[in-house]
């Protein structure tokens, strides 16, 4: 079983003793609990195998059941493009695309993504061959510090798909008509991605360009 190592910073002492020597004998679809001693007494830490498919590549991991998809990506697969902001689903920095839909990776357990197709910012494009949304963010100056940007871009790519698929938003006037990729629609649909630098106007313009409409 191929499990990349932990970042040192993520290894809590309480997990170190428990992690050693555990691999075999697991039941598919169920985790196995065992006691790990620490100073506070015995607590049951539970681990479970999961295969994550990220940007088209499969990874076999055995994870503490508490591990979020965000932490699995960052701390176990060392894919740090996806950012941790609030860790409570409020800021959108952790947005990734799972089976074509954007989600907050901080509010989802890694062990619940067996078999899912996960796309992160690393899977959208490369510096040499940027995704059209990445190129539009550069062109329109859709970021300043850049920390929220991977989440913004993953969200923006999925928003355009949602509009095309007829998913309504709070500012949609006519539920029965085709959805419009208007500036107000972009702003409403992107409200789950917070940018402290305030690049919102330029983000909306970048999205409008990709959608083929003027902002």
């Amino acid at each position, binding site marked *: 079983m191929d499990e990349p190592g932990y970042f040192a910073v993520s290894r809590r002492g309480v997990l170190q003793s428990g992690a050693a020597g555990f691999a075999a004998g697991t039941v598919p679809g169920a985790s196995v609990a065992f006691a790990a001693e620490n100073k506070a007494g015995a607590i049951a830490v539970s681990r479970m195998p999961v295969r994550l498919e990220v940007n088209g590549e499969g990874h076999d991991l055995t994870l503490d059941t508490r591990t979020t998809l965000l932490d699995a990506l960052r701390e176990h697969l060392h894919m740090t493009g996806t950012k941790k902001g609030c860790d409570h689903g409020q800021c959108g920095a952790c947005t990734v695309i799972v089976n074509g839909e954007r*989600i907050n990776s901080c*509010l989802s*357990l890694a062990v619940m993504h067996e078999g899912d197709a996960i796309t992160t910012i690393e899977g959208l494009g490369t510096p040499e061959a940027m995704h059209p949304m990445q190129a539009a963010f550069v062109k329109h100056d859709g970021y300043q510090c850049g920390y929220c940007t991977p989440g913004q871009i993953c969200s923006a790519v999925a928003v355009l798909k949602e509009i095309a698929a007829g998913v309504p938003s709070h500012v949609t006037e006519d539920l029965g008509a085709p959805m419009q990729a208007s500036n107000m629609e972009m702003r409403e649909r992107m409200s789950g991605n917070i940018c402290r630098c305030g690049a919102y106007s330029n983000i909306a313009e970048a999205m409008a360009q990709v959608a083929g409409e003027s902002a």
Partner: protein
Amino acid sequence: MKPFTFERVSSPAQAAAAAAKSRGARFIAGGTNLLDLMKLEIEAPTHLIDVTQTGLGEISATGDGGLRIGALVTNTALAAHERVKRDYGVLSRAIVAGASGQLRNKATTGGNLLQRTRCPYFYDTNMACNKRVPESGCSARGGVSRQLGIVGVSEACIATYPGDMAVALRVLDAVVETVRPDGSARTIPIAEFHRLWGDTPHIETALEPGEMITAVVLPAPLGGTHLYHKVRDRRSYAFALVSVAAVLDAEGRGRVAVGGIAPRPWRVEAADAALPDAAAAARALTQGASPTDQNAFKIALVERTLAGVLAKARGEFA
């Protein structure tokens, strides 16, 4: 987060059986509210039962012209469903008035009904909260209460039910279908699903321990104009101060339910009967209100929000 064991089940019957075996278990589907609360250790299940593979993700027509919405249908899928957009617009509009696109892609119909209050004292584990720790007291009384409830609240708890979807379901008279740990099924009208807090604010719904929602059933379409108006401190991605779900005819007669003011979506027969008189309907909806100094504005806001919705139904403004 406290450690937990994890189990995947493949049918509602298996889920019910798994719940019957483990006292500290919780079902998990979208997880958007439960995991947030687990990180804060407000929720600390010892066992999670993953119900996402139980085949409850479909929307289907019922024999009497209504819709059966599987408990696992996501908020996004429900709001975007062609029949929902056409025949139950109030439901589509309520759903997209809540949360963010990312959350709506994960959040499920069953889970959304069970989302817990956003009272700041429920969330702050350093403060007394009868809902989080029974009989520990209520810090909200005398605290910051702008967002909190004005009707149906109790001495023990003034929190609100925070959701939008259920306010629309209340106006539509939806019915919740469940399976209990012994495997038996039952139905619960949405009007009886969320409890008033009373002396036991930690018991929030009519569900028994281990009982799982399998579907929400909508009766045949009502016709009329479907509106959902939500007043909040931010224009997007914020919980309601007051929201109104309405299905109205061109004169402004029909049904209304109000969110953001009570432990459950608030619908009063006398208010529906008083329509299209916004003032009379609002009086019926807020009768017996016991607001705090900080949220007494909600009484006037209910009437004004209702008046706005009625004007829109009558075509007075776009």
